């Protein structure tokens, strides 16, 4: 298959496939489940097949000129393929987990349709080469996440879903204004043309500010972060998708794509953004320490870790950027694992409050160990994957000339250790406050084990990950 077909398949197979999912569901639930997983896996396979060509330096592109500059362009370079593999890998595991999780509930056709559409739109975002279509796919993910957050249809859940939709849409339309400003400055919506037109001139500060508003709202960073902890009412695999693996990574990806790989930004931003990220990381870590709802704690943890990724990407040093990218992968895997474990606990114990849980290690040992391994990765303890990324990010921050901010993040990392250990000990160790339940279903347990093992492998085989990432960074800053 030539690379262009692979690129098209990676994006459109899940999107078109998602429309077929309800039809498959009418025939049989198993067919629907399998088909849904197949759609996501096809993205993964296409992205992996694109690896050899992008790492040889070729950039694959599919483009159609459409009226008014809204050209449809898909571009596959190292960064996109990396993000695509990250998102679809974690997405596949989450879909697999859903088999065991969602079959207790109603509206399953809608669920699989939305999840597949969501992952397909994610592929659209990472491969998009035109700002307008980037926005289109961005909003489709917002729409899918609205339906998914309110999935259980309780009134308070739907209100939270509405709130999430509104906050992210507000950020998104601001971002759209930023795109139009860029269009005014450079005359095009195409990323390639913008890059050529700007050269070394920094992008207009108004455009950067507006686009940042969109990025910060999608990636749940201060001050647009309030929707993320509330969105924990979604089904567990959805929160894993949203909070960990995919949705919050959209913002950081677009940051990397626009402000590192496409256009230069004025120097003050290299200080402002780390400061905002630092504030976000500290405040959310503090909140995580006080919370008692299991999923909310992990959600605040995500906000904190995303601040860390922003630090890596925004300090302007290559090692920081590499660390940030690596942490996108590692955090996605580990945080996905944490949320899926939380899902198992919640489903079997019917209890979300950690002060009422305890002693689950005896009855759910696999879940407990998976949770521990994933937490260790998020804390940044070797030999797990998170260690190298955190080390590189801190090095990058210091190399970029922000030692004080690096110290702030050190405090954040300290708080991370505290609250994650707190959750682990209160939920899995100690005396049971409520009668303990048995281990989750096989598909669910396999999924979390795979994620935990990937976290460990990510650390041990770091060599295989860091070399491609260095290459990606080189290509980005060229």
């Amino acid at each position, binding site marked *: 298959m030539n690379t262009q077909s692979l690129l098209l398949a990676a994006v459109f197979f899940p999107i078109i496939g998602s429309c077929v999912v309800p039809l498959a569901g009418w025939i049989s639930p198993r067919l629907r489940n399998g088909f849904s997983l197949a759609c996501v896996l096809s993205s993964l396979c296409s992205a992996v097949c694109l690896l050899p060509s992008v790492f040889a330096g070729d950039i694959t592109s599919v483009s159609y000129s459409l009226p008014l500059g809204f050209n449809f362009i898909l571009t596959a370079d190292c960064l996109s393929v990396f993000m695509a593999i990250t998102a679809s890998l974690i997405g596949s595991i989450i879909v697999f987990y859903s088999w065991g999780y969602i079959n207790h509930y109603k509206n399953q056709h809608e669920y699989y349709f939305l999840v597949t559409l969501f992952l397909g739109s994610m592929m659209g975002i990472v491969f998009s080469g035109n700002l307008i279509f980037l926005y289109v796919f961005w909003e489709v993910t917002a729409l899918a996440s609205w339906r998914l957050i309110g999935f259980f249809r309780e009134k308070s859940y739907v209100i939270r879903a509405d709130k999430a939709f509104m906050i992210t849409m507000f950020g998104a339309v601001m971002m759209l204004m930023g795109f139009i400003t860029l269009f005014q400055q450079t005359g095009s919506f195409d990323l390639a043309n913008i890059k050529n037109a700007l050269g070394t001139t920094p992008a207009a500060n108004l455009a950067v500010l507006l686009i940042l508003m969109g990025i910060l709202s999608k990636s749940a960073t201060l001050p647009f972060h309030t929707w993320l902890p509330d969105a924990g009412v979604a089904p567990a695999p959805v929160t894993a998708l949203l909070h960990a693996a995919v949705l919050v990574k959209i913002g950081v990806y677009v940051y990397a794509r626009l402000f590192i790989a496409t256009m230069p930004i004025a120097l003050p931003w290299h200080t402002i953004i780390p400061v905002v990220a630092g504030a976000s990381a500290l405040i959310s870590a503090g909140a995580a320490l006080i919370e008692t709802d299991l999923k909310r704690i992990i959600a605040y943890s995500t906000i904190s870790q995303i601040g860390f990724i922003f630090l890596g990407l925004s300090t302007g040093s290559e090692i920081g950027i*590499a660390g940030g990218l690596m942490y996108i992968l590692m955090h996605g895997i580990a945080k996905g694992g944490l949320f899926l474990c939380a899902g198992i606990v919640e489903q079997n114990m019917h209890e979300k409050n950690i002060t009422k849980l305890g002693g689950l290690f005896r009855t759910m040992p696999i879940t407990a160990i998976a949770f521990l391994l994933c937490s*260790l990765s998020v*804390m*940044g*303890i*070797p*030999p797990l994957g998170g*260690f*190298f990324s*955190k*080390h590189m990010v*801190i*090095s990058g*921050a*210091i*190399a970029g000339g922000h*030692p004080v901010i*690096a*110290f702030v993040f*050190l405090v954040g*990392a*300290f708080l991370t*250790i*505290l609250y994650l*250990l707190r959750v682990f*000990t209160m939920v899995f*160790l*100690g005396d049971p406050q409520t009668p303990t339940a048995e281990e989750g279903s096989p598909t669910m347990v396999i999924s979390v084990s795979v994620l935990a093992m990937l976290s460990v492998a990510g650390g041990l085989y*770091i*060599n295989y990950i*860091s*070399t491609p990432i*260095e290459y990606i960074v080189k290509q980005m800053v060229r």
Partner: protein
Amino acid sequence: MDIPILFYLIIVPVASALLALIAPQRLRAATAVAGCTVTLALTLALFSVPRYFSVPWAGTQCAFRLDAIAGFLLVATAIVSVLVVLYCIKQRENADYCYTFFPFLLVSLALINGALISDNLTMMLFFWEGLLIPLFGMIATAHKDAYKTAVKAFIIVGVSDLCLMFAIALIEHSAHTLTISQMRIPLDGAGGIAFIFMLVGVIAKVGAIPLHSWMPDAAEETPLALTAFFSGSLARLLGIYVLIRMTTEMFPYVLSSWAGFLIIAAGLATLGYGIVMAPAQKSPKKLLSYISIAVSGFFLVSAGSIFPENPEYAALFLAASTIIIALAFLAAGMKEQLMGTVTAALSIRTRNRAWLGAFHTRMDHRRFDPYELAMAFSGWAAKCAVVVDKFINWIYDGFIPFCAITLSTIVRAFHTGNYAAYIIWSLAGTIAVIVFMIK
């Protein structure tokens, strides 16, 4: 693939750890013994020839080396591991604990070996911080509620490891290299801050104040084997090793500056603290841990004053004393087992406290009462009677360390001709002896 022979120091223990995990209970002990002995043989075999190689990995050059310093310490580590494993097999109680303990022990051995042979700071940090996981596991599996202590240990050591990470980042930025043997960092500005943060990391590991609190709690909650293996011996070994590297290679101007004073001050404070707290302990295990803290302080002082001048001897001394202290702890454990003198030991301490209490009462002016005075005096007399009893214990517990310390003091003093140092050392040694005596 041609794996450099140095890596076998890491691979062998890890492989034995995996084997030990899957082996049935009867074979687990055997696997552990085999693993440790093979490692020991390796370290002895490798000891003679200094080796150095570097391999590109994860974007940087990672250097590994085996020189005399590391060599001594590797041997010491292996010997301690073998001793602890044998101890575990011999003693009957805590058998279940020992079976989960072995894999963690082997993993820790691998990590310590790795840290000792790393010449690259990031790799060293990788192994150093990786010890958090086996440490947590070893403490948490001791008994049902031990996880709280494990969490405390994890947090204290983990945070100090974070400081170490920060320091390494600063060092990389100012020295532009991560290879320890090639660094020469001045102590002003970023270098100074990096030094302080690294010192924080070292302090938590060796158990100096103010980051020592995990050690007594860990000693209390877990069987003796852990204290003997880790908190009491190998943790200190690793910490002081890094301090040696810091003072000799990374920050070569330490001695004559504020940094050297900082180390010595920390060391003296720890030494004093350990000595004061040790006699007040009721529990034998806590006593041992406070002794360990005191010894750590002692080594800190040495590291800040003497060690940088001749690191190979320092390493030899460190190695020897680690082995001896580990032996002492194990012997104390064995003694309690063989003679069942836990209660007896406790009663000695109770009498000890009574003596201290009497002394205290004597100082209370409001009670300047002839009767009280008489009681105090009789307390004194009782104490003299006890001394004889203690002397017997001292022979078992204090003699060996006492010999080691005085011997090495004499050797060192003659070697360097540094009499001031000799005085400090002998003073410290005597204080340590007094501690043992009181015990």
